[in-house]
């Protein structure tokens, strides 16, 4: 993982005596087209193309199709035509069309007015949960990496929150945070955790951090374990303090693994849906509504075109975040995953 050159992933994964040499005489004969990779890689790609590729193309197309409605000029009921930005304008500027066909600001209560609050919630949840999870996960990884008694038990224990379905997690925390629940009775307070605008956000953050920090910790731990111990040995001999060791050795060396973990958690947090829906409310105007929630709610009303526009916006948002993280922050995922792992023991 540390010693990799960008283009290495194809050449790299083939140790001496790879696929080429096992075909009949490879040296002089011009190679026939090799069909094996096609049928090996083809079927999964076809599935992905049908189940992910096609719906995406269709959603993008629909997002530019106007809604069916009465055409004021011809006076007839017509299908919407392709080539309108109306749905994007609807979401981004909350402009609705009134009875006489004129754009007006949407009335309060219209789902479009929930767009920016939902964007803010999504961004806030992502930043807050991923930050807490990174710091806490790093600390957990350091503790779990130590040579202590009961380490296997520790690792099994942190897998429990990860393995529990999010739907169950949400119900579990709904119980813990219920008005007469254990949190209120231990604190001796009377906090409306699942309805108060502020505390409901706190509840979602706590439940999410509880569930996903262990995953972060395990990924970071794997990165920590790839750092050879003698590096620290050498640093210590040279008189480096513990803090210096951490900043100059641990952080730079664990950075690739850390960035990958942060990238995956960020993308995951941006599409948060289950927790706020089950723990707090599925309503678009709930204090914890996320952007995914709005897509589903709009779809349930049957407004497929404008739901498609919103889901395209979500897709673009996630794509942009992934792009920025990979390009500028150096979360180098593709190589780390396809190239041969170089484990230093």
């Amino acid at each position: 993982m540390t010693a990799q050159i960008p283009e290495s992933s194809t050449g790299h994964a083939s140790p001496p005596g790879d696929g080429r040499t096992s075909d009949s005489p490879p040296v002089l004969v011009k190679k026939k087209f090799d069909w094996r990779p096609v049928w090996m890689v083809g079927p999964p790609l076809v599935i992905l193309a049908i189940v992910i590729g096609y719906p995406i193309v269709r959603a993008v197309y629909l997002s530019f199709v106007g809604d069916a409605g009465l055409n004021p000029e011809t006076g007839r009921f017509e299908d919407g035509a392709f080539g309108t930005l109306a749905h994007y304008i609807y979401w981004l500027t909350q402009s609705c069309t009134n009875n006489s066909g004129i754009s007006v600001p949407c009335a309060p209560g219209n789902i479009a007015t929930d767009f920016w609050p939902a964007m803010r919630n999504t961004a806030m949840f992502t930043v807050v949960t991923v930050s807490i999870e990174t710091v806490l996960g790093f600390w957990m990884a350091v503790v779990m990496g130590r040579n202590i008694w009961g380490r296997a038990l520790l690792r099994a224990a942190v897998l429990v929150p990860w393995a529990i379905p999010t739907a169950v997690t949400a119900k579990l925390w709904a119980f813990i945070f219920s008005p007469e629940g254990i949190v209120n009775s231990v604190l001796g307070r009377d906090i409306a955790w699942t309805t108060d605008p502020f505390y409901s956000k706190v509840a979602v953050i706590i439940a999410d951090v509880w569930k996903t920090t262990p995953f972060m910790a395990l990924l970071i731990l794997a990165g920590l374990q790839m750092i050879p111990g003698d590096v620290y040995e050498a640093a210590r001999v040279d008189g480096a303090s513990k803090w210096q060791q951490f900043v100059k050795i641990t952080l730079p060396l664990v950075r690739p693994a850390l960035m990958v973990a942060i990238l995956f958690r960020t993308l995951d947090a941006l599409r948060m849906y289950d927790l706020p829906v089950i723990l707090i409310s599925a309503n678009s105007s709930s204090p914890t509504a996320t952007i995914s929630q709005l897509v589903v709610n709009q779809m349930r009303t049957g407004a497929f075109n404008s739901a498609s526009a919103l889901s395209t916006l979500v897709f673009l948002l996630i794509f942009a975040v992934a792009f920025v993280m990979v390009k500028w922050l150096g979360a180098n995922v593709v190589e780390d995953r396809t190239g041969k792992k170089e484990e230093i023991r």
Partner: protein
Amino acid sequence: MSAPTAPTGSGHSSGSGTPTGAERPVIAAPRQPIWPQIRTYLGALFILVWGLAPFYWMVVTAFRDNVHTFSKNPFPSHLTMANFKQALDTSGGNDFLAAIGNSVLISVVTTLAAIIFGVFAAYALARVDFRGKFLVSGVVLAASMFPGVALVTPLFQLFTDIGWIGSYQAMIIPNVSFALPLTIYTLTSFFNDLPWELEEAARVDGATRGQAFMKIILPLAAPALFTTAILAFIMTWNEFMLSSQLSNQSTEPVTVAIARFAGNDPFTQPYAAIMAAGALVTIPLVIMVLIFQRRIVSGLTAGGLKS
């Protein structure tokens, strides 16, 4: 990941790779001051409580008489099975047992399909040189980061058109496409670590590539396949958003069933019964995690995808 290295692998690498504990070479334990030790164990205790306490509270409540649901007593008390009976009771319009069956069906079929398709793709990515390999791994990776919510509208519309809403395939096929990237990446990473010299040896001895794969590589890769299957299974078992839109009451998986679980009284949440239902869904997973802890950790960090 191969069998021979398994016993030493975990203990060894973490012993040498511990960042902050590394100032102590493995032998010199006695000279270690006591305070950092205590701090470490306090940290470990915190992590243990973190992982297990909420789950413990769910199980304790599930077995507690629902008159005492909001009791503060941290120890099991007022033991009863009534909550489980209520959770499985079908008279209120819930059929939790059927939902468990649906989840098993959906998860098993999805996992099998993902493994079968994934194993060949992973083999090609790890072992065969072909043009466009970088592109293929890029596409698979992009698919793994893909937001499910971007699919829900078009899939809902498509499945409505062809009358698939509420059918099992409407949930299985999208789930396969979610599990495939995870499967392919985890398996590719495992395959890279296999001793491929054995395959070469078999080929030298006259085995075809297919024979070498079936007779030599597959048995060696069995632990990797198993681990990947566990990950894909857990991921599918936990899926909620698409299933909540594409299922109906008779095909819904447990996650959907538990989310809309309601008691006879619409104004009070039947928490004890919900905790019992949650325990039913979770305890098998937790047992699986406890048994296969090391495998799952190695699979998660090899593929490092999704939660």
